[in-house]
């Protein structure tokens, strides 16, 4: 269980997070929605220790704030950053291969046949393109590769930062269906999204973040029907 209490994050004098409290239960799919600049990415970067924070972040009771990014990954907390961070000069296969470094030494290869099989089943397109350099993939494929590579690290929780960014609606739906599938197999998922509609549809519980604070929370279905959310984030007024 991931638990965050009174989390503050700073970029120099700017306070990006102003006291966040949230909880992600094991096996859950939790969404955090909010506008640009609300602090969503900062929140994930705080969990994976890429920014300095005050407050507490614990994973199954263990304090994460004392660890560094690599150790966080080794504990099974895998952050997939926004903007399709793949290794452009490596092939699809090599990208996945490198992802397995999380559970063995970088000096030697591990046995990841089963992991690969699972990922190729999930994203058949990655198998078709396994010898292609990652930069030559389409946006959606790059995002799938980023998720696949994170799965190669045998995570216990996936932190997904705006997986829908810059993708066509059809691709977004496909990707989120895959994320559902991963979640149904027992993976805990924390999704940060600007695309509130998709995020609420594919999660069980959601938080709304605005200006560094959690303004609302509740089961996703309830939030999706809440008038304030509909007006502010889903972009349509109910008649």
């Amino acid at each position, binding site marked *: 269980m991931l638990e965050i209490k009174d989390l503050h994050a700073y970029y120099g004098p700017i306070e990006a997070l102003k006291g966040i409290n949230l909880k992600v239960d094991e096996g859950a799919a939790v969404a955090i929605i909010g506008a640009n600049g609300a602090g969503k990415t900062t929140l994930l970067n705080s969990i*994976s220790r*890429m920014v300095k924070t005050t407050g507490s972040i614990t994973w199954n009771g263990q304090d994460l704030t004392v660890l560094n*990014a*690599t150790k966080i*990954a*080794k504990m099974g907390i*895998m*952050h*997939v*950053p926004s903007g*399709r*961070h*793949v*290794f*452009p*000069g*490596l092939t699809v296969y*090599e*990208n996945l*291969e*490198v*992802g397995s*470094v*999380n*559970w063995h030494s*970088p*000096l*030697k*290869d591990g046995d990841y046949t089963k992991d690969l099989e699972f990922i190729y089943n999930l994203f058949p397109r990655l198998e078709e393109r396994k010898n292609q*350099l990652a*930069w030559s*993939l389409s*946006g959606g494929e*790059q995002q799938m590769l980023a998720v696949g*590579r*994170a799965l190669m*690290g045998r995570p216990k929780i996936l932190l997904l930062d705006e997986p829908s960014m810059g993708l066509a609606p059809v691709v977004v739906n496909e990707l989120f269906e895959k994320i559902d599938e991963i979640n149904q197999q027992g993976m805990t998922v924390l999704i940060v999204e600007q695309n509130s509609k998709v995020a609420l549809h594919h999660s069980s519980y959601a938080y709304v973040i605005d200006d560094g604070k959690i303004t609302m929370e509740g089961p996703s279905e309830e939030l999706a029907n809440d008038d304030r959310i509909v007006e502010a984030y889903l972009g349509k007024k109910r008649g």
Partner: protein
Amino acid sequence: MLYLQMAITGISMGMLYALMAMGLTLIVKAVGVLNFAHGQLFMLGAYLTWMLTYSLNLPLWGVIVCGIIVFAICGAAYMFSVYWPLRNSSWKVTVTISTLGASIALKEFVQIVWGTIPLTMKPIVNGVFHFGTVYLNYQYIFIILIGGGLMALVYILFEKTFLGKVMQATAQDRYCAELIGIPTIVSIMATYMISMVLSGTGGWLAGPLFLVSSSLGSLAQKAFAGMVLGGFGDVKGAIVGCLLIGMIESFGLIITDAYKDAIVFAVLIIVLVVRPTGIFGEKISEKA
């Protein structure tokens, strides 16, 4: 036949530059820093192998084995002293400036330890290779063989081994590499170690041709020129560029002896005017 002789000399000089340029390029790719002390690392390599050979009286294989170990340690030490403490500095040029400082420190260090008088070093095999009317110092042939062998090893390391992939990944996207659990400190350290082994070996090979002195470091200028000529930031380009520089230098002797360095840099300027990205300077186009 004179041309063949010149070509072989040119290639072997180019090989020395390429050993430096490869290391430089690997560091540029891994941490984005141009290492201005690279010539001094090359020089340090020459002094260290001189020490192993003449102060410790090790046989050839001992020099090679100990040399590689000592170079790897030096590479790691260099990284932890010159790069690591400054890596998060808010001004990006800081590390580059610190490499400039390191180059001066290294130069002074060897002069304090080994004195200012140039030291002589025997070639691996004494004598002259004789074929028809071609007369060549054996050392030139060894440079080509050992240099080429090392390059092949580095190629295998980066393209065929898991550690190589991890190092490439770290170089391509450091932020992401940390998030997926790559201990970036290990892969950056490995890059520095390999880089130092390459230039240190270069220094060992160059020692018998020149004298072992603190001015060996100035050969790095040609390595920089080769890097730019081949296309900055590309390992293959750096090697080809350096071999070309060696050839230009060697064949430049036909025209003039005194101005051979000027010819090298004149060619460099002309190439850059015609093709500013260098020969292999096509970047991997990243999708937006």
